[in-house]
């Protein structure tokens, strides 16, 4: 696993614990809005937390395409690598 991926996964886990502590461990392939039942406010807070942790800004249109945690992680790795 690349260093960037490790960093991103740690940031996502920390943000989940911070923004949505009530959820516990999540299935990374579950749909955020469908299966996990998150609303748009919860997802925005989660992403803001991740952005702070990673010192990164995620463009809004990229978020619109993300359905699962794994997809979010993949996008974050991609953005983080571009930033480096």
């Amino acid at each position, binding site marked *: 696993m690349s260093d960037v991926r490790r960093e991103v996964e740690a940031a996502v886990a920390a943000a989940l614990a911070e923004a949505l502590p009530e959820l516990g461990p999540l299935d990374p392939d579950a749909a955020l809005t469908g299966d996990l039942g998150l*609303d748009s*406010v*919860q997802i*925005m807070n989660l992403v*803001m937390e991740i952005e*702070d942790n990673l010192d990164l*800004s*995620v463009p*809004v*249109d990229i978020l619109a395409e993300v359905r699962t945690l794994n997809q979010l992680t993949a996008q974050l790795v991609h953005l983080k690598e571009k930033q480096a």
Partner: protein
Amino acid sequence: MSLFDKFRPLAETRAGLGNSGPAPIATPIDRVLSATRGVIDGKEVILAGTNNYLGLTFEPSVIAAASQALAELGTGTTGSRMANGSYADHRALESELAAAFGWPSAMVFSTGYQANLGVLSGLVSEGEYLLVDSDSHASIYDGCRLSKAQTIRFRHNDPDNLDRRLARLGEDAKKALVVVEGLYSMLGDQPPLAEFVEVKNRHGAWLLVDEAHSFGVFGERGLGLTEQAGLLDEVDFVVGTFSKSLAGIGGFCVSPHAELELLRLASRPYIFTASPSPAVIAATRRALTLLIEGQDLRDSLHRNINHLYREVKAMGHELGSADPGPVMAIILPDRATALAHWRGLLERGVYANLMIPPATPAGLNLLRISLSAAHSEDDINQIVTALQSLRETIPLAATA
């Protein structure tokens, strides 16, 4: 399988609001009697759920200006100013708006929604950035979607968060337009404008302030929060609407940059739609004069605002904003309690707004009361008495 299947959750939400009495969403108003009175469900009520901040909708000279234009210039322009002709009155209104700010350029749009669509999508494009507050109005978000620029959200009213995001852009921050509102209409809160100005100046970014709800309300001449904060020299664009304090319909953008004029050639929401009707433009011109000279109207409005805030704070309600403003949002613990307050107010002769997710930030359930310069002290007293009696009858612990 139907195209309408996806609306089922929305339909269920609406159904969940019950069908006893008038609907809290798209509430039917049988008749409007004045700036502050209407008939709902056959009963006369105080209107405290409109955006008629200066109470100008029935002002005789505004109506006279509209009537005269209607008779002299007809019912509509029947087209776009770029394609079908640009009337003298539309141009005069733009000159008057620009002059009010002491700036070289102003553009009029057919609605405030389209002003944001037209300015954001036209001005900021591929390879550039839109940095918008996360609580932004839908018209700002939709302007971003129509733009080819990259859109980045910053935390609501958080200049430090904006600072970090501009820092990440490095040199590209000079190609970034920061967008904030002068008054956020869901919670009624205001941005720390001076801090935002400091941050955007340090990064060389641009700043647009949407004064939709603050125009007419704040500032010596009613130009908005930017004027009140003494920051007119520090912003690049002010967007506003004719539909609230100006009591009509339409929108505008003013700028100290004369090049704003070039946007007329490039902004699709400006070009590909009909311009406002002559009567609307004439009414707005007259209302603009009254707004600029309307310190007395603002005094009345702020007297009402301070009165209501003082009383409601004393009731122990949690409010969306500690700063008194024309919109008061009472935060209620859940939808059922919010709905009970909304219906209770209506039964006591006061029409306010029920605001629920997904329209609200942070998933809040709100009872929203908007005030007008035209409300009398008795009106405010009646609103206070109604809220007081609800406070005594509806428990604020979760009722669900």
